[in-house]
């Protein structure tokens, strides 16, 4: 066939089927507080467990509101609120075993709380006192990661290490969970994490909180198909769960973590939820979304539905609800006091810990800077 010949005829195919309608997500508790069944997932909570979940939801929301208030009052530099995402965080956070490891973004305050960690821990970061300095291994909770998607590779590597240590294959196995947002799914790193975890069959759960927005950009800027479907093409299961349903999130995450710890490799969970507040306190969401959309999601509130459930099932009375609110309030006040008490760092410490083993250049700079600071002593500086 020489160049310039007429192209031979060819078949027009109709293989391009219409995309299937998005499958339903896993749901165990409706927005109205009805407990519904799912063929593959269930929970077997005691009454006390249900009340405990409610307490967690209320508490993390209350603490979050306190942090927002602190920011408004100039006590924090910025705050990334989890408002609306409490069920996604409490459900998944409570599904963790003590030996499991978490790699959060900058918004997983609720997961952190459920790990039993003092909620003050990340506030130094948002106050600007440090950069969120804690020992990931002590808390089984990595430091917050701000660069979108980077932590998914860290989580994958950590999970590869778990496998190397022989800590998979039984009920005591260790699982790893990597949190990220809908926007993050566009990053190369997240997709590489999918490749690696699949190839190395790493014991990891990818937990995507699809809160419908990456700052101002709606989901359609990142994908034209449901995000959980991404997983199959990398060779592992993906599943979508009602991210405002703490029971469903718990059940699905528990199952995925268990598969990971048993050696069955990764799972992608898409928790379908909504960011009720601003992206961070620096953001103004009225510029890019309409009130009616937010209202529609208000009806699906993750906390209200558990309260409705508790009420309907008569698992709790007003005294309980009041006590939970009051306990959360007290925690919030305590949190506030401790934030206000956080000391500013000594500027001389800014030269520390650049390297574990030090560096003569930093020693020299520390010394010069100390002398420089000293030269102002007694002056009005």
């Amino acid at each position, binding site marked *: 066939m020489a160049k310039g010949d007429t192209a031979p005829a060819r078949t027009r195919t109709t293989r391009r089927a219409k995309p299937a309608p998005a499958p339903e997500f896993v749901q165990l508790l409706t927005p109205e507080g009805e407990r519904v069944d799912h063929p593959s997932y269930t929970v077997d909570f005691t009454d006390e467990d249900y009340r405990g979940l409610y307490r967690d939801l209320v508490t993390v929301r209350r603490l979050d509101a306190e942090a927002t208030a602190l920011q408004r009052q100039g006590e924090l*530099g*910025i705050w990334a609120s989890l408002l609306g995402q409490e069920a996604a965080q409490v459900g998944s956070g409570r599904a963790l075993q003590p030996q499991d490891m978490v790699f959060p973004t*900058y918004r997983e305050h609720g997961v952190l709380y459920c790990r039993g960690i003092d909620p003050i821990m990340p506030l130094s*970061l*948002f*106050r*600007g*006192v*440090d*950069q*969120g300095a804690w020992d990931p291994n002590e808390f089984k909770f990595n430091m917050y990661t*701000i*660069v*979108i998607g980077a932590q998914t590779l860290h989580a994958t590597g950590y999970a590869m290490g778990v496998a190397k240590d022989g800590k998979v294959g039984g009920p005591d196995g260790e699982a790893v969970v990597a949190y990220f947002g809908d*926007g*993050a799914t*566009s*990053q*190369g*790193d997240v997709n590489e994490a999918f490749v690696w975890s699949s190839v190395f069959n790493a014991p990891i759960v990818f937990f995507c909180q699809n809160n419908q927005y*990456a*700052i*101002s*950009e709606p989901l359609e*800027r*990142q994908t034209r198909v449901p995000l959980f479907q991404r997983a199959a093409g990398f060779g592992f299961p993906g599943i979508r769960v009602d991210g405002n349903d703490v029971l469903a999130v718990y059940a699905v995450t528990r199952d995925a973590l268990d598969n990971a710890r048993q050696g069955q490799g990764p799972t992608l969970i898409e928790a379908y939820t909504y960011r009720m507040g601003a992206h961070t306190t*620096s*953001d103004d969401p009225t*510029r*890019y979304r309409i009130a009616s959309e937010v209202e529609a999601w208000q009806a699906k509130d993750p906390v209200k539905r558990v309260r409705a459930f508790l009420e309907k099932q008569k698992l709790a009375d007003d005294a309980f609800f009041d006590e939970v609110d009051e306990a959360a309030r007290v925690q919030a006040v305590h949190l506030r006091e401790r934030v206000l008490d956080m000391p*500013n*760092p000594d*500027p001389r*410490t*800014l*030269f520390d810990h*650049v390297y574990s083993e030090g560096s003569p*250049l*930093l020693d020299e*700079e520390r010394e010069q*800077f100390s002398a*420089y600071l000293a*030269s*102002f002593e007694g002056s009005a*500086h």
Partner: protein
Amino acid sequence: MTETLTLGKALNVGLRRSLEADDKVLIMGEDVGKLGGVFRITDGLQKDFGEDRVIDTPLAESGIIGTAVGLAIRGYRPVCEIQFDGFVYPAYDQIVSQVAKMTYRSRGKVKMPIVIRIPFGGGIGAVEHHSESPEAYFAHTAGLKVVSCSNPNDAYWMIQQAVASDDPIVFLEPKRRYWEKGEVDTDATAPSFPLHSARVVRPGTDCTVVAYGPMVRTALDAATAVDGERSLEVIDLRSLSPLDLGPVYESVRRTGRLIVVHEAPSNLGMGAEVAARVTEHCFYSLEAPVLRVTGFNTPYPAARVEEEYLPDLDRVLDGVDRTFGW
């Protein structure tokens, strides 16, 4: 006639002019459309020029720059916004191996009229990755040009010059100066200075102070502070690559002393290059070695110590004292 604009608004108006002047100009990045960018530099542009020209992109910096390369091959002139300095690195491969090399690889047959806008530098009390000064990573890269504006009038003109350039330009915007106001000559039909030129922004006789971007104001403040005592000549580099050191050589030959000020760490930074070249060209004029007043050689620190990290008026004057103490 001039207008009083903030630096951020001057950029916004400059971008608008560029979009008007040439159909092929596109704006792309995260949140640049409906939101108008987290700093509102592209505010209103999508509304007026449409989603086809002002594009909210997926959250992927390598994708932003990589697709810009393809758009440039197709004949477009993409202006890419990187949301913050610390988020440019996922795009680093596309920038240094593709954007910077495409013209050389093609022996001039392919042009890369891409502008990469980066709000850079500290001083706004932000969390990690939001306050960095990555200019050395780009200025060291042959094939890229790097500029930084320090005032509204330059912002207005330099962004238009950058968009009009057929070479790829990393355009560094001093984010903490976005809200500073100044006179902008929006009536003029052409800029008064070539894009890649340094400028004496305050004449003086005793010591030369070179700065760029956010530190120009700091240097000027220092000059004002010691006015009467010591006469500092302040030069705004404006172009970090290629460097225009002619005015600096000329100045140093008069003053005999030079301080280079920047926020980035000193080690292999702009100050090192300026020092090396000024020393070579003005060897017999220097009364003291070129001194650098810069950020320390640490990662950018937590917000509550950033004021100590960043060069300020006192640190610049300390540098001046040291050069006179030589």
